[in-house]
């Protein structure tokens, strides 16, 4: 995308920031190609979590003592950093959650339950992760709304003619993935959101895979909601983000009740705090938020243009090498892709591919990738998936290809 202008990335130097990358698995150097499942953590993230517990631990928004004030300020500073990371208009548009799944469930439970009624339609797509399908099914069952899904082309892109047909006067919500975890397709989200908003449809973008790999600008995308997870963007597990446009968040009822999300409480009734506190009941994952802040700072220090350019080169090289192999078929061949190479091997089940690669110290994912409708669309029970991050190397892709040849030799 921005390959021409991007500064070079020094991958050997970057790798030294990730302690786990120097370990061995089954006697071989670890080749970690399961980044779509979760990413590895650079030292600044590990140190931020550790430092919080060693030197800074206190609850936030409560005490008037030194540590609590420091923790509160640091927590809110990360909120501001996240807002800059996705170019939100204000920090108050950033809600901390446990992850993408919880972010989407929050929208379904709060906005969805109050806004939808029988006869309304929710438009999703055939390449959504289960976390962007099942919350809407629960919402549909509770409200009487109906789910429609945009079908996929053979290359793994959205069928845009069908999208236009499915977007109707009944559509209330468009929920669409930015970057597919099973296919690697980058969806034209800005265009889809514009078409939906033109009809007054609320829009949610699942950014679990895009946040680590693509520049994200929620104002340019024009979406109402954007969800992503900390652990896929080199931060800790257990923390995620929901961006919501201030106007919408302000109108939404609470999702969970408890401390921190209220203004006043009597034994009969309570009044709600304004967003984002309204959606952050109870003590949050403070140490993980510190880790997320360190992760985003780290990503920005490497530079997203440099990351994008290097990952594009890695994916192109891996695609070319796997295409050379006999009996391999790539699932997901859209022109606009990032990070993900999903494939099947004639006569060999993906789990057996994964087991042989693991024996060579190579970590990939084998399975349905929590996207069973994608597997059904392409008529496969599962795929093997290599997914790349900026700390991967061409030599690691060579190791992958060597191991894939071994797979063919063993099972053919």
């Amino acid at each position, binding site marked *: 995308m921005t390959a021409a202008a991007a500064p070079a990335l020094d991958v050997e130097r970057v790798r030294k920031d990730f302690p786990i990358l120097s370990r061995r698995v089954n006697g071989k150097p670890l080749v970690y190609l399961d980044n779509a499942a979760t990413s590895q953590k650079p030292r600044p993230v590990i140190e931020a979590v550790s430092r919080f517990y060693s030197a800074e631990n206190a609850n936030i928004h409560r005490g008037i003592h030194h540590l609590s004030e420091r923790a509160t300020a640091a927590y809110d500073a990360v909120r501001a950093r996240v807002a800059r990371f996705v170019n939100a208009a204000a920090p108050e548009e950033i809600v901390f959650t446990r992850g993408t799944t919880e972010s989407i469930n929050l929208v379904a439970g709060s906005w969805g339950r109050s806004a939808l009624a029988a006869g309304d339609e929710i438009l999703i797509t055939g390449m959504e992760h289960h976390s962007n399908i099942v919350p809407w099914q629960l919402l549909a069952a509770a409200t009487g709304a109906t789910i429609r899904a945009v079908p996929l082309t053979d290359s793994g892109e959205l069928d845009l003619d069908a999208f236009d047909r499915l977007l109707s006067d009944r559509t209330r919500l468009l929920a669409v993935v930015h970057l597919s975890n099973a296919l690697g397709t980058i969806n034209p989200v800005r265009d889809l959101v514009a078409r939906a908003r033109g009809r007054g449809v609320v829009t949610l973008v699942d950014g679990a895979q895009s946040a680590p790999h693509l520049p994200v600008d929620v104002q340019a995308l024009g979406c109402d909601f954007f969800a992503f997870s900390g652990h896929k963007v080199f931060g800790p597990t257990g923390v995620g983000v929901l961006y919501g446009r201030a106007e919408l968040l302000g109108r939404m009822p609470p999702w969970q009740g408890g401390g921190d999300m209220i203004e006043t409480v009597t034994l009969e009734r309570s009044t709600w705090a304004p967003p984002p506190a309204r959606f952050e009941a109870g003590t949050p994952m403070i140490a993980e938020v510190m880790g997320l802040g360190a992760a985003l700072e780290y990503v920005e220090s490497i530079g997203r243009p440099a990351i994008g350019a290097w990952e594009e080169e890695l994916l192109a090289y891996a695609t070319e090498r796997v295409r050379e192999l006999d009996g391999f078929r790539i699932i997901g061949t859209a022109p606009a892709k990032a990070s993900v190479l999903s494939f099947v091997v004639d006569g060999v089940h993906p789990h057996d591919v994964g087991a042989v690669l693991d024996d060579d110290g190579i970590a990939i994912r084998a399975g349905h990738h929590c996207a069973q409708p994608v*597997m059904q669309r392409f008529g496969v*029970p*599962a795929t093997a998936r290599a997914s790349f991050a900026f700390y991967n190397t061409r030599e690691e892709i060579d190791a992958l290809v060597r191991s894939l040849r071994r797979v063919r030799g063993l099972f053919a």
Partner: protein
Amino acid sequence: MSSLSELYQNVILEHNRSPRNYRAMEDADHQAEGHNPLCGDQVTVWVRMDGDLIGDVSFRGAGCAISKASASLMTGAVKGKSRAEAEAMFERFHRLVTGTLRPEEAETLGKLAVFSGVSEFPVRVKCASLSWHTLRAALDGSQAAASH
């Protein structure tokens, strides 16, 4: 390398390439479908009883080499056995793949002993035992009850 070659023994690779009794059964009196939702593996097992004995047993499905070879070897092992004998065999097989079977007991499993390497790969235990669970479900229910 050693644990991987323990897992994918030649007998297993050969049964994966050419599974035995790999067919639907027209005149089955028991049938069940098994799924492993974690990996999407799917198997259907058919049984025709001959009095108190398993007269014929067959399977079809999609799965990894371990699950396919396990189903194939299972069909050979339980044919001609009573339900109780098949159940006892499954019990020993399950202890084999979870690494809790004594070596002298393993000898009583015959060809099924090739799955001993599975115990080094805990995530593959479900692959090896899927067809056995499905056989049990088939024998427990009638065809109508199992096909819901």
